């Protein structure tokens, strides 16, 4: 297959775009696409300080690579979850994130959950008895809390995550199957900082296929963790992705159409935003935004774990591991 741009040998054929490209042209084309979506959804500008959440995977490291090539000011945030899975998943993902940051002379903030709060994520799941034996629920809660807190306290004007189109379409499918109105209203390329303490969250890869990101990582020679999180095996998200890929196989572009039609429907007023807006207020303990009355879910979760482990119940006022964190401007 020939590259549409130069006629050389293509390395990727994107049937949804009817476009095949060689390695060199693909490495230029994808960042141009991401730049389009950053501008279209008004995510951030080159004057912004962006905190890039990295996991050591292809999506987050690939996006970080794209953002620095596009000239954005970025620092990284890696959250150490303490997941082993028999092959040192967290250790490997941290090492690869650090390697990328070092090679590009970038700042990487690291928050190790166990060192900072007192337990690993798998341990937290067992003690808290949440998630029916799977730590994904407590993992998500911790990641969202820490990402928001570091972004806000560090004075970052945007928090970027590597969620790609397949992630978005899989979540959209799940929320549609459940008619989860509140979640559907909040699913968007940009989640604004709608109250003090809440970071602006952006997803520059929301229109980029997961396959495209894997190809970008290979073409750019990015060393990423190939194995997925051991706890994600058999997850609903992966199941939904497989179903959506069956649709995509029969109808190229089906995933993209599903997601874009949803965004257009939302724009046209299909969902009532006011009726679904959660009532956010500051947590009595840590000050982070929460919908729960009094203390937030994060503080209540860690109270329980600290009590069981015989640790002091005071949630750290500061993220001690973040010694390099810049002050808010």
């Amino acid at each position: 297959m020939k590259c549409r741009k130069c006629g050389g040998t293509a390395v990727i054929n994107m049937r949804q775009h009817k476009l095949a490209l060689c390695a060199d042209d693909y490495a230029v084309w994808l960042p141009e696409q991401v730049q389009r979506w950053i501008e279209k959804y008004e995510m951030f500008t080159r004057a912004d300080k962006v905190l890039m959440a990295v996991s050591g995977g292809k999506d987050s490291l690939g996006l970080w690579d794209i953002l620095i090539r596009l000239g954005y000011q970025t620092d990284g945030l890696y959250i150490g979850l303490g997941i082993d899975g028999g092959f040192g998943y967290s250790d490997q993902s941290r090492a690869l994130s650090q390697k990328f940051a070092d090679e590009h002379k970038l700042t990487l903030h690291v928050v190790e959950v166990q060192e900072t709060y007192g337990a690993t994520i798998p341990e937290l799941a067992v003690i808290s008895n949440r998630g029916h034996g799977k730590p994904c629920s407590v993992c998500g809660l911790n990641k969202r809390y820490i990402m928001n807190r570091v972004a806000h306290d560090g004075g970052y004007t945007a928090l970027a995550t590597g969620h790609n189109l397949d992630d978005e379409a899989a979540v959209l499918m799940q929320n549609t199957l459940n008619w989860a109105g509140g979640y559907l209203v909040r699913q968007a390329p940009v989640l604004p900082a709608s109250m003090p303490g809440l970071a602006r969250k952006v997803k520059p890869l929301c229109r980029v296929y997961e396959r495209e990101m894997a190809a970008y990582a290979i073409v750019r020679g990015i060393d990423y963790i190939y194995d997925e999180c051991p706890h994600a095996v058999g997850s609903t998200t992966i199941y939904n992705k497989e179903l959506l890929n069956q649709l995509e196989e029969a109808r190229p572009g089906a995933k993209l159409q599903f997601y874009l039609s949803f965004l257009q429907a939302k724009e046209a007023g299909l969902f009532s935003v006011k009726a679904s807006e959660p009532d956010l207020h500051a947590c009595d303990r840590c000050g982070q935004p929460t919908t729960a009355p009094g203390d937030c879910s994060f503080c209540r979760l860690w109270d329980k774990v600290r009590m069981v482990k015989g640790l002091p119940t005071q949630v750290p006022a500061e993220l001690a591991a973040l010694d390099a964190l810049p002050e808010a401007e």
Partner: protein
Amino acid sequence: MIVKIAYRGKEYDANAGTTLRDAVKKIGLQPETVLAVVDGKLVTDDTIVREGMQIKLVAVISGGAL
């Protein structure tokens, strides 16, 4: 002639002369969920499988990441 294809730590057989896309389907995978790397280079799935090729499939689906 049988050519070996590596995927997630296992090896699968493919017939020389078929396309990678057909070989992937024969293994039972969806072409959308993998990329093919031949002799260390990314290739499109219309590539014809030939004797002597070092073929590796890279899974593109992940879950639980940020």
